[in-house]
């Protein structure tokens, strides 16, 4: 050995099992972290790509707020604005291919397509339209169309084929000739590859409208975007509109992914923290075990910094090995995560990001956390005095007690690392979903994390009573239980450390189970509370509410009511507020909506009469709205004023928020809503099953897709389940890491008690009983940890639920199944961790044990 540092490597090699388990534990934590970071980076890249596709080379986008689109006057103003070089209008609508509608009434409708009407000159100047065959649209084109390769492959279309598109009722289906096929899925991500591009005039004729959905603007060289924005805001007063720059599009798309990334990171932080426990525990055991050696080194002239360096080198080796292994495993986990999640909204994810940035970041965090976790044991080792080398008997007491307070340092390091990598835009959404699992911004996760840390720090104080409670199920093994409890109480600090990792892992599992159950229940309850019917007929484009559709279906046998509901945006306080047009009398008759303030009957009547609005509790709290207030909406030259006639616990959910409720008169006259997006069907009691087939057939003939509310609830539940299962699997890894730590702790405990075990055997205890004693010790620890973890988990979970949906705290429901499963899993992991150490203990030779010094 040429250098003192070699002693560090020898020490690791001398305990191969302990070193391996520690590396494995760190690797698991780092793998989850890398999977989160890599998947997150891939999501960010997908969002950037989608945003770039969406905006192309446009610097600004003027978007219609109303369903009827931007009128000609607004388009002229925009095109004439100083600084604007190109103004590319586009009309976007969804419809069905006529051929696809020729299906049996009992079959589901085919997938719709998105039709984009463009200016053939202006659009290609701002958006790349790479072709795989054919040509782009020309000014002279009339009934010509471009399709994406994805659509062509799906529908068996080729160049020159005729494509029939369903339009508005008046023009009816119209034929287009395919003149070009765009490569890939096209530049409109939300179309999902099913994109048809036609000349703008043809699209307007097809859908019987003169408006456009958006105007993409290219600016003259040297013109500042902010100047053009100021000009537009000063000159457009014809109608409400949305103004977006590329960053806004990115932010909007990122809203769907940021909360998911944040939740993944929160769980990763917990698993990493469990890994840090392992390092802390392992090094504490090493210090205790090598007290005499360290004392001798000090007596021989090793300084305190040298001793500290030896310990930190060991930690660094474990951390680096674990981090590298974790990154390798994490790459696969990232791919699995992205594959499992698939997509959110219109953004489809590709493969994980394996560039140097996330790899180096993960490596740095892994090593940093390892070093933070090893500082206290290393410092303690350096305080060992030379005299400690000379004490007879067990040397563990001289190494001092591991101070759990130092875990706060590890907590701080992990929190800082999380802050550095926290996804932009996380914590902004309200309503059930991934945002529910995170809370507001970074503070929510920090509070959750802090609660978990606090639980770990309290465990040592509760250890005695906890072990007594945990011992109850093992009552029939009285002598072994007594010995097991005394062994656990021998070093409360070590016991608490081992239990702590298990506590936080199980707490996270129960918390996620709590959040999942309640979020699912809230989401499903939401529909039941806000939709006046048991079934929805969904349209991909607004349907006139006074047309024949509603009358025909309402007249069918067994149908009690057909209530149209339209979703659209309204300009309020400078932002887009989601709104829903409803028939008040239908809600009154069906007894829907839970009123927090206001009289339901008069509120619904006021909606139908016009000039009224019902707001959800979430908006009331946010904007401090009161019953009777007048809300002003910026609808063009003359604002629209509506009086608040009711405040409800929950309202119809929109894309990103709950909708305010208005009557159809206000919706169409003031806000430009042109039709219903779905019809809520209420059947006569007892006639639902007989009436359904005819209703469904009629609906499909009008391109309306029936969706049973139970099926919608199931779909919502399935999507949430899918996500929460992923999070649960990650949280369970924290429990596995804790199990690895338990193997270490129990093995050390057995080695410390060699002589004691020899005495027990000599006195008459069988090797099977010795085995049982160690297993019971693990079982006690597992059960005690599980009880604390379940309690803490329910608390954390209730916080997550409270953050996600205000006002529902009173309806909180404990997830009994999650709790029972978590407790069982915790005990099983603990017992599994005890098998090897128990075998060690039971196989010891009595003679050697009694001679052990």
């Amino acid at each position, binding site marked *: *050995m040429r250098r003192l540092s070699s002693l560090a490597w020898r020490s690791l090699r001398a305990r191969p099992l302990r070193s391996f388990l520690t590396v494995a534990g760190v690797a698991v934590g780092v793998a989850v972290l890398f999977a989160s970071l890599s998947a997150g980076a891939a999501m960010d890249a997908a969002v950037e790509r989608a945003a770039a596709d969406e905006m192309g080379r446009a610097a600004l986008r003027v978007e219609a707020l109303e369903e009827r689109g931007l009128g000609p006057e607004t388009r002229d103003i925009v095109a004439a604005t100083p600084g604007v070089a190109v103004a590319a209008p586009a009309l976007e609508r969804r419809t069905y291919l006529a051929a696809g509608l020729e299906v049996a009434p009992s079959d589901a409708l085919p997938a719709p397509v998105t039709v984009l009407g463009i200016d053939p000159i202006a659009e290609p100047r701002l958006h790349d339209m790479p072709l795989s065959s054919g040509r782009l649209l020309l000014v002279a084109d009339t009934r010509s169309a471009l399709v994406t390769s994805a659509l062509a492959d799906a529908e068996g279309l080729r160049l020159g084929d005729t494509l029939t598109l369903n339009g508005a009722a008046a023009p009816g289906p119209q034929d287009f000739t395919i003149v070009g096929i765009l490569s890939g899925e096209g530049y409109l991500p939300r179309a999902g590859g099913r994109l048809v591009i036609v000349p703008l005039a043809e699209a307007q004729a097809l859908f019987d409208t003169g408006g456009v959905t958006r105007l993409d603007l290219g600016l003259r060289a040297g013109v500042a975007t902010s100047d053009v924005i100021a000009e537009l805001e000063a000159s457009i007063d014809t109608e409400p509109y949305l103004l977006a720059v590329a960053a806004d599009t990115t932010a909007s798309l990122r809203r769907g992914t940021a909360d998911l990334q944040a939740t993944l990171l929160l769980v990763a932080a917990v698993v990493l923290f469990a890994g840090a426990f392992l390092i802390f525990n392992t090094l504490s055991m090493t210090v205790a075990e090598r007290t005499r050696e360290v004392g*001798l080194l000090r007596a*021989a002239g090793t300084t305190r910094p040298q001793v500290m360096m030896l310990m930190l080198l060991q930690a660094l080796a474990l951390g680096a090995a674990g981090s590298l292994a974790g990154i390798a495993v994490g790459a696969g986990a990232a791919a699995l995560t992205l594959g499992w999640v698939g997509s959110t909204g219109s953004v489809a994810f590709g493969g994980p990001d394996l560039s140097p940035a996330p790899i180096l970041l993960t490596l740095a965090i892994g090593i940093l956390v390892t070093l933070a976790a090893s500082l206290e044991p290393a410092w303690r080792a350096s305080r060992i*005095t*030379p005299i400690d080398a*000379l004490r007879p008997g067990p040397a563990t007491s001289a190494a001092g007690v591991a101070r759990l307070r130092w875990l706060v340092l590890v907590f701080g390091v992990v929190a800082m690392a999380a802050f550095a990598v926290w996804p932009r835009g996380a914590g902004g959404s309200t309503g059930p979903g991934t945002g529910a699992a995170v809370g507001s911004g970074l503070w929510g996760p920090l509070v959750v994390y802090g609660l978990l840390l606090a639980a770990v720090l309290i465990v040592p104080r509760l250890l005695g009573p906890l072990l007594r409670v945990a011992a109850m199920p093992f009552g029939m093994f009285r002598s072994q239980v007594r010995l097991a409890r005394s062994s656990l109480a021998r070093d409360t600090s070590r016991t608490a450390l081992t239990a702590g990792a298990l506590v936080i892992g199980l707490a996270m599992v129960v918390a996620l189970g709590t959040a999942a159950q309640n979020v699912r229940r809230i989401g499903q309850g939401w529909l039941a509370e806000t939709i006046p019917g048991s079934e929805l007929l969904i349209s991909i484009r607004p349907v006139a509410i006074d047309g024949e559709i509603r009358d025909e279906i309402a007249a069918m046998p067994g149908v009690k009511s057909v209530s149209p509901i339209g979703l659209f945006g309204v300009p309020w306080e400078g932002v887009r507020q989601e709104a829903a047009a409803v028939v008040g009398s239908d809600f009154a008759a069906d007894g829907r909506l839970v009123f927090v303030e206001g009289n339901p009957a008069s509120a619904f009547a006021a909606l139908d009469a016009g000039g009224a609005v019902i707001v959800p509790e979430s908006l009331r709290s946010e904007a401090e709205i009161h019953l009777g207030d007048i809300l002003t909406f910026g609808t063009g030259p003359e604002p629209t004023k509506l009086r608040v006639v009711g405040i409800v616990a929950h309202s119809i959910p929109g894309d990103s928020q709950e909708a305010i409720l208005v009557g159809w008169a206000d919706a169409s006259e003031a806000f430009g809503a042109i039709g219903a997006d779905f019809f809520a069907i209420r059947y006569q009691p007892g006639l639902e099953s007989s009436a359904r087939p005819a209703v469904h057939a009629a609906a499909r003939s009008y391109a309306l897709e029936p969706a049973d509310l139970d099926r919608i609830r199931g779909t919502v539940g399935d999507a949430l389940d899918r996500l929460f299962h992923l999070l649960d699997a990650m949280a369970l890894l924290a429990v596995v890491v804790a199990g690895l730590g338990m193997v270490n702790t129990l093995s050390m405990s057995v080695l410390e008690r060699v002589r004691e075990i020899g005495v027990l055997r000599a006195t008459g205890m069988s090797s099977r009983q010795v085995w049982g004693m160690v297993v019971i010790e693990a079982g006690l620890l597992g059960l005690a940890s599980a009880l604390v973890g379940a309690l803490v988990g329910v608390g954390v979970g209730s916080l997550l639920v409270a953050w996600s949906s205000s006002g529902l705290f009173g309806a909180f429901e404990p997830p009994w199944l999650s709790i029972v499963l978590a407790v069982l899993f915790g005990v099983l992991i603990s017992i599994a961790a005890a098998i090897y150490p128990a075998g060690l203990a039971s196989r010891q030779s009595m003679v050697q044990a009694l001679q052990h010094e």
Partner: protein
Amino acid sequence: MPSVQPAAPKLQVSLAGAPARRPHDGPILEARDLTKRYTLGNRRVEAVNGVSLSVHRGEFVAIMGPSGSGKSTLLLLLGGLDRPTAGEVILDGEAVSRLNDRETTILRREKTGFVFQFFNLIPLLDVYENVALPFTIAGVDPRRGEAAASIQDVLGRVDLVGRERNRPDQLSAGEQQRVALARALVTRPAILLADEPTGNLDYATGGEILDELWRSCDELGQTIVLVSHDARAAAYADRVLVLGDGRICDEIKLGRNADHDARPLIARLAQLGL
């Protein structure tokens, strides 16, 4: 009996860049009014109470006393392993009590060697590496130059040539203690401190260790302070300090004798009632 002068220049072990310390004229070790008190439960214990002594270069001094007399505590104070409550220790001209922990550690590294009752070898290291430990700690490569030569020399002296690659668990108790002795001697320290070095050995093996200690003193001029309750071990010394209740009760001059006859010492101890 006159003190014995060292036969050869000492090998000084220093940190890289730190100047080697010059040997000091006068006693190699001095204790002035040394006191050590500590609290045991709610009792105050005075393990060492106002002890003053001096040890000259090349002397072999033994400290004897019954169990609880404070002899081991005194040895730890003399070697800088523990700090006195009062008083001073001067080791080769350095006032140990005025040094901070780092300075004390380095002084210990350069000036002292220790042999303990329980061998205290590093189980992960083999014989060569255990003996080389003082060099390794100081950052000197033990496989080259003077360091390697010193190690080979001392292994030869303790008759462990050929066992360099063995680990402690492959050695007998006597061999382990010889490794510990070799480690203590390898840097030719100013003073070697031995605390019950034969306490864990059988009669014959213990004798071998004591013989080696005496030879290193007699032939190489190594200064030795030995603590023992065993009169046979103490009989190897030039003089014996008898400790009782933390104080020096008596000093018995034995002189440098190759026969190490313990009978005069035993007789004198009997007169003292020990």
